[in-house]
C-alpha cells in the first residue's frame, strides 16, 4: 500500500461521491451511524490505495486527509 487516507467520521455526510470516483475501490460505507445520523464512509486499509487524492478533491465536506509515501 503506497498511501492511505483518514476520514473524519463525525463530519462525513455519507454522500458516497468519493466511493464513486476512487479508482481502487478503497472506500466503502461504514456500518456505524455518526452523531449527526449520517452513515459515513470508511477506508479499506487492506486495499491498494496509491494516495492519488482523488477522493479528497471531490469530497464536498473536506473530511479526507491523504498520506503518500
Amino acid at each position, binding site marked *: 500500500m503506497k*498511501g*492511505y487516507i483518514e476520514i473524519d467520521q463525525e*463530519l462525513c*455526510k*455519507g*454522500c*458516497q*461521491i468519493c466511493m*464513486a*470516483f476512487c479508482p481502487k475501490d478503497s472506500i466503502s460505507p461504514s456500518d456505524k451511524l455518526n452523531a*449527526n445520523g*449520517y452513515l459515513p464512509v470508511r477506508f479499506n486499509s487492506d486495499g491498494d490505495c496509491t*494516495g492519488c*487524492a*482523488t477522493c*479528497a*478533491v*471531490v*469530497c*464536498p*465536506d*473536506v473530511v*479526507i*486527509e*491523504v*498520506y*503518500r*509515501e
Partner: protein
Amino acid sequence: MKKVYRRPKSLKRAAFHYCPGCGHSIIHRLLTEVFDEMNIQDRVIGIPPPGCSVFAYHYLDVDMAESAHGRGAAVATGLKRAYPDALVFTYQGDGDLAAIGTAETIHAANRGERITSIFINNAVYGMTGGQMAPTTLSNMKTTTTPYGRDTRLEGYPVRMSEMVALVKGAVYIERTAVNSPANIRKTKKAIRKAFQAQIDDLGYSLVEILSPCPTNWKMNPLESWQWVENEMTKEFPLGLIKDITREKDSTGKRDAD
C-alpha cells in the same frame, strides 16, 4: 508517509451546513486553496449572498460583508473603491446574480470594477425550497413549474456569462463545473485566473460554476453530479467565454478593443 492533502489554512474548522453532495462546500474549499496558494488571505474581502451560502463567513477565514439580495456587485464596488488594495469578491447564486442582481452585475462589469464574481449556477432557488430560477432548464420540474418550465410562459434559461461577456469592462469570464475531479481542478484554475486579473488591475472577472443541488433536483448526490454533465452542460456549455487579460495593458490606459 507524508501528508499530501490537508484542509486549507483559510478554511475554518467548522462543519458545513450544506446537504450531502452539495457543490457549495467544494467551491468554498477551492476558494480557500487559491487564497493560500496566492498568499492573499489577509487582503481578501468577500461578499456572501442571500441563499444557502449566506453563512459563508462561518467557513471562509477572510473578511466578509453581507449584502442584500442581488446587491453583491454594488457592495463590492463600494468596498473596492474604499479599499483599493483589497481583493474583493462576490459569491452569488443564480437567483441573486441572474435575477434580482442583473442590473448591478452588468453595470459593475461595464464600469470595469476591479472585482471578481463567483457565480454559482444550480438552475434552481435552493434555500427557499426549489422554485424556478432564471437559469432553470427548459422542461425542468421545480416547485413553481410542476409540469416543467414552459418556455412560452416562463421564458428561456438565462446565459448570464455570455451576457456579461459583451460589455467592455469584463476581462475574464469562464464557465466551469464541480462535478468531476477534472472539472474541479479546472474550476480552481479559473478562480485563480479571475483573482489574478483583479490583482493585475485589469477589470471585472466572473467565474460561473455549475453546481449540483441534489435536494432540490430530488436526486441522490451521484445522480446530481451526472445530471450536471448530461443535462446542464447542454444548455450551459463549459469553457472559456472571454479572456482579454493579455491584450489589456495593466495600467488600464489602453483599451483592449
